[in-house]
């Protein structure tokens, strides 16, 4: 998921990659750098999203050299959309592009499966997102502070992890603003514990 706050964006993801019911990687990094201040959150097929992200990263590097300035988040998102839409029959990729650029500040674009492009102040994606639409709609506020935004993302991802079997592990968060990118890692056993049922044995 990704959330705009005053001065930037906060992005977060869980760390589980599954092969059927087997967890093939319990410490995956789903927050992938596309450029210095542009990241993407990957969901769907790992192979598809890794490949597309690598391709977009290559094009962004070329863009930066050719234009002698970093690309805007909108440019990266448009390129993701082009790849996802034109190859929609062969891909299973849900991508959130988020970052900071000079002209627009912190921006977020959601590209769900199918290849549509949606600019949103906050957005969630992936199999676990279904479980937290209510929580996010109720708790999102415009112009949050950085601390509020980080708490919002951490709690939302934690709640999704506790309900969705395909999500789990730990929480990775990145804060992107004018000064750069700050990555954080929260081990699974240090996350908040929400309602987990009653202890019937007494």
């Amino acid at each position: 998921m990704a959330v705009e706050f005053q001065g930037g964006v906060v992005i977060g993801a869980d760390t589980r990659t599954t092969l059927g019911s087997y967890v093939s990687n319990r410490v995956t990094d789903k927050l992938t750098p596309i450029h210095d201040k542009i990241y993407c959150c990957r969901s769907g097929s790992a192979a598809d999203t890794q490949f597309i992200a690598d391709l977009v990263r290559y094009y962004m590097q070329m863009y930066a050299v050719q234009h002698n300035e970093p690309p805007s988040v909108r440019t990266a998102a448009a390129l993701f959309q082009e790849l996802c839409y034109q190859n929609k029959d062969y891909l299973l990729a849900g991508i959130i592009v988020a970052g900071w650029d000079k002209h627009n500040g912190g921006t977020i674009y959601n590209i769900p499966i199918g290849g549509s492009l949606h600019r949103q102040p906050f957005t969630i994606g992936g199999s676990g997102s279904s479980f937290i639409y209510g929580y996010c709609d109720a708790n999102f506020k415009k112009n949050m502070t950085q601390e509020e935004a980080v708490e919002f993302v951490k709690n939302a991802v934690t709640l999704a992890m506790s309900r969705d079997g395909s999500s789990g592990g730990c929480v990775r968060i990145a804060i992107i603003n004018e000064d750069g990118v700050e990555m954080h890692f929260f081990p699974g056993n240090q996350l908040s514990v929400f309602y987990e049922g009653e202890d019937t044995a007494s």
Partner: protein
Amino acid sequence: MRDKIEIPKSGFNFDNYRRNAFLEKQGLSLPKPIKTGTTIVGLLFKDGVILGADTRSTNGTIVANKNCEKIHYLAPNMYCAGAGTAADTEQATSMISSQLELHRLATGRQARVITAVTIYQGHMGAALIIGGYDISGPGLFNVHPHGSTDKLPFMAMGSGSLAAMSILESRWTKDLERDDAIELAKDAIEAGIFNDLGSGSNVDINIIEKDKVEVLRNYAKPNERAVKEQSYKYKRGATAYLKEYVREFIVTEGDAMDIS
């Protein structure tokens, strides 16, 4: 007129897909690929990387090769263990190895592990664990058949991966000593050998450190065939016969071949 030089297309060559689809339509059943069954592991230790593999190759429920080599050479500082379809892992690793050699010659530098990882694009039934030591230190990656990659400090793949992973999860720690790491890799593979039907026979271990590679083929042989208790050969004359008919097959000089 053919005066344009044909530059080879990049990416995977799908020409054979059309041929195979055509043959299948004609009624030819494609041969069933030999899988390696397999338990392969990779783990980082204090000074480098260890790769381990079992040595059983299966064709359905029959063991095709009791002592095959699943750890393949990629570069002087890089080896690769392969699980999945045997032909695919062989071809994928030899393709990666030749591309790496060309890359090494073109750049004049030691190959990096991450380069090998990005060469394999999927489209084949090969799951690889690539381990090596390059200028940026020890590197351990795995590649799934569809092309997705993971970077982990320890990993297991193949049908015996769950058994091996349980050993790795309980005993791997950061900065293991060389001997402890070898024992851990051996125990992880043995877990696969004894608990997975698709894995068996012996344990191969490869230790890759800075400027040094040690290949321990058949490091452990926990399944050696026991010595037979007695000789089961039949003595000459044990079987009685009723008629004897001797035909000379050795043709001496001058005998013409019968072409009637």
